[in-house]
């Protein structure tokens, strides 16, 4: 079997990946505009890179794209679990192997010959972004419906704490996306694989 003929990403992975990318871009840019309405850190996001034009518009975008993220995310997780891909691709994960792979990457010795195999750094990044997305949805639920989800609200430390959690989880997602795009730029055939499947 050669890497060229073998399917790296099944169709459902590719579809959910790109739907998720669209949802994340809309949610992030509109979320920045919402943050700007009442910033709790000593900075605002430049309005040119936000979506919605005004608070009401940004909220409409945000609360429309949230369904896209949630629905698509549930389909992705369900397929991932049912097909067994979650365990096959992302686990096992060991801290020792992770450190070894980080060192290899820094020395430029981490192989990308087989795109269907994820090294420990990739596994960590993808598992992180899955968990981070779940945290984004849960903290978002608390911000949207803090009275209706009391257990979730208290778990996150109350409404005001949930705002910070939601923001920091966003920052984590944006950091992931930045590194992700950098890696794609370094190994461009991963982009082809996510489009064609091979």
């Amino acid at each position, binding site marked *: 079997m050669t890497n060229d003929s073998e399917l790296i990403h099944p169709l459902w992975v590719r579809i959910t990946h790109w739907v998720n990318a669209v949802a994340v871009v809309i949610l992030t840019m509109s979320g920045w505009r919402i943050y700007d*309405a009442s910033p709790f850190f000593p900075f605002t996001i430049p309005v040119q890179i936000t979506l919605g034009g005004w608070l009401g518009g940004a909220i409409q975008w945000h609360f429309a794209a949230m369904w896209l993220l949630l629905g698509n995310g549930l389909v992705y997780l369900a397929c991932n679990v049912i097909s067994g891909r979650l365990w096959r691709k992302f686990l096992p994960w060991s801290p020792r192997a992770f450190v070894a792979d980080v060192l290899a990457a820094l020395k430029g010795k981490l192989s990308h010959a087989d795109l269907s195999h994820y090294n420990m750094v990739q596994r960590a990044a993808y598992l992180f972004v899955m968990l981070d997305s779940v945290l984004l949805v849960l903290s978002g639920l608390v911000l949207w419906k803090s009275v209706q989800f009391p257990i979730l609200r208290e778990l996150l430390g109350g409404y005001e704490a949930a705002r910070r959690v939601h923001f920091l989880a966003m920052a984590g997602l944006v950091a992931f996306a930045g590194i992700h795009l950098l890696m794609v730029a370094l190994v461009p055939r991963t982009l082809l694989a996510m489009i064609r499947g091979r």
Partner: protein
Amino acid sequence: MIKKPARQLGFNGELLLKDALKDIGRHLEQPTRRAFLQRSLSLGGLSLLSGCAVVDESSVENALMKVSRFNDKVQAWLFDPKRLAPTYPDSMITRPFPFNAYYGEDEIREVAEEGYRLEVTGLVADKHAWTLAELRAMPQTDQITRHICVEGWSAIGKWGGVPFASFLRRVGADLNAKYVGFKCADDYYTSIDMPTALHPQTLLTLTYDSQPLPPRYGFPMKLRMPTKLGYKNPKHIQAIFVTNTYPGGYWEDQGYNWFGGS
């Protein structure tokens, strides 16, 4: 703080004239709203979605509004009429409690207690106009709850007054009606769903921090709902009406979500 430069049409005591002005105001707002949307569409977010530069702007606007209406339904479904918002001790009250309106603090309306009457119309048995003394004579309660603004910030305050459910029952309101609408002395208007109107923490508020409601917080009365965002809580209420016809609201007509629940 939300400030709205448009619509400085002033206040006139006569309701008819006020309604006419409101309609004009709505038309005046349209260009502003268009400008907002044009700005939002020029950001490239859409060309990313559709892959083309030219997008029918009003169809996107309509689609987003439809999702917002869908979100109203989801929120009505999620809303538990018995679930209470958290309450807090006196020590946690935010001082000073922030002022917020669609206008600045220099434009706060001063409503005189003398001659004030609360109009109650629509699907109610008793349509008599209420004096403040009559309202103060009803059983009162108070609560310390968190006010959450659509902008994201929140503050804890102490409000007292008549549970709105008792008031609605007292005037013989049709409790199966869909909406309760409010018209205010500051030309603000909004409307809420009946289940929220009947929620035990929904309060026809006459006091703030055990003092008569000051003008900045909406004298002579506001509707306080810890289960809804700030813009759903009208101040300076002059008229309450029960209806099955969707009444909209000042911000809601411009694109804020109507249910606005928390």
